[in-house]
């Protein structure tokens, strides 16, 4: 073992392969965040007032949250594998669309995005619903008396009051998708080629398959720094004095 000072970090900055993996991770994190957020917020709003079978739908909606990521990977592997998977079959039969994530990089990316949306939208929904039901009632009543319409109420009352909860959800989801490994490894193993190889998978593989211990550690620290920065934002929001939702 020789001392090489910052060489591993110098290499890291110019390592296209690794930077591409980080870029993929960021793209993946923000794409999934966008869809989960919009969908989850709409669903949370729709769950506020009761309708037939609401508790039942809520339980079904919670189900993906307790299923292990690795099992989610297996479920969708069986669902989308070419040969007998229903998804490629029906896409071809109904729309004439050829779906084979083992070949097409674009499809593989949208598949892992779709799986993440399936898995984690319930988290966004339930968290935002909890936030929504903790909001005080008074502003709504005074807004109604003043003759505000539902859209105005949403943008001027609901949204501003929800900001702390929204930020908590955003940061937790960002951190979770930046460290995502299990389901993607199970589903695509980073393929086709290296097209769905995210930062977490890349580090894991280069340490335990290629045995680049030193360089792997450098990459780990880089990923850790990104996470700590996001984590710090989350911490500041969660402990800030104004917000009501944190139980002190």
């Amino acid at each position: 073992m020789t001392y090489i000072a910052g060489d591993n970090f110098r290499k890291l900055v110019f390592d296209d392969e690794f930077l591409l993996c980080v870029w993929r991770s960021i793209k993946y994190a923000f794409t999934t965040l966008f869809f989960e957020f919009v969908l989850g917020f709409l669903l949370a709003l729709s769950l506020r007032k009761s309708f037939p079978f609401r508790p039942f739908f809520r339980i079904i909606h919670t189900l993906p949250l307790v299923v292990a990521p690795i099992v989610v990977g297996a479920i969708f592997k069986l669902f989308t594998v070419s040969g007998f998977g229903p998804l490629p079959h029906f896409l071809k039969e109904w729309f004439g669309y050829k779906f084979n994530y083992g070949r097409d990089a674009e499809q593989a990316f949208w598949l892992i995005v779709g799986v993440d949306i399936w898995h984690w939208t319930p988290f966004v929904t339930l968290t935002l619903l909890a936030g929504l039901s903790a909001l005080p009632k008074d502003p709504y009543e005074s807004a109604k008396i003043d003759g505000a319409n539902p859209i105005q109420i949403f943008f001027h009352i609901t949204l501003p009051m929800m900001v702390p909860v929204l930020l908590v959800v955003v940061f937790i989801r960002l951190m979770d998708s930046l460290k995502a490994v299990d389901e993607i490894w199970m589903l695509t193993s980073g393929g086709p080629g290296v097209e769905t190889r995210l930062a977490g998978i890349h580090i894991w593989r280069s340490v335990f398959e290629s045995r680049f211990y030193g360089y792997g550690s450098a990459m780990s620290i880089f990923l850790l720094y990104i996470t700590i920065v996001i984590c710090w934002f989350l911490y500041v929001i969660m402990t800030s004095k104004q917000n009501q939702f944190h139980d002190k």
Partner: protein
Amino acid sequence: MTNNLIKLLKFIIWSVLSLITIIPIYWMILVSTRSPVELFGKPDFSPTFFEKIYWKNFIKPFVDGVYSEYLLNSIIVASCNAILVTALAIMATYALSRWKLAASENIFFWTMTNRMAPPAAFLLPLFLLFSLVFRYDDINLFDTKIGLILLYCVFNLPFAIWLLKGIFDGIPKDLDEAVLMDGGGYFTIITRIIIPQAAPGIAIAALLSWIFAWNEYLLAATLTSVYARTIPTGLAEFVTTTGTNWGSMAAVGFVSMLPALVFISLVQKHIVAGLTFGAVKG
């Protein structure tokens, strides 16, 4: 009138969503009950498992193979971890809730980073610690159940503490003082007052810890090799084998999902608190 229309619309949308949630899971259960020949061709969604089940999918991994050992490992690791986490969390939370600690804000940030840190960043140091540093003669933590049980405390304990904190804070301090007046110690306070008062919360913390430990894959895959492999690592073994036996993979997946299916109605009210470290209450 419009009100009822909205209700109907919501019902329809949520029915579709529930179908989207259930169909992939249902398909896995179907695959696990069918023979390889029955799988190919047009996907058949009819519930054929009422008529006949192709038991070989289950027998092959669980009776002939090593998956029953994996299953036992998983049960031992998850259960011991849940017990350990609950016991430690009760004591830690009691301390955090009753005394003003010097750096309790920093302790909060620290516990949160433990849970949020990407496991990929810690794999290598953990691997070296487990195989080289924490050792006595040729006994080390690598590939042992004890290693996994201790390791899972790192990310289950923060969550359990922050779930219990709110509950413990709600138990009046007068009760503590009454016990101290009558000559009881802190142990009596915890066993006679705190635990009975916070029993539902403690049960939820234990249950969620159990599920998180059961579900964990990446660390288990890296820090075990033969003797302490858990069921998620077993499931992942199907990826690398060529000519995957889809039926057995579905069967193993189904078995590793069973606890989730059993506990879902118990945890569904508290999962939000669990996943946001109690920042948002469900």
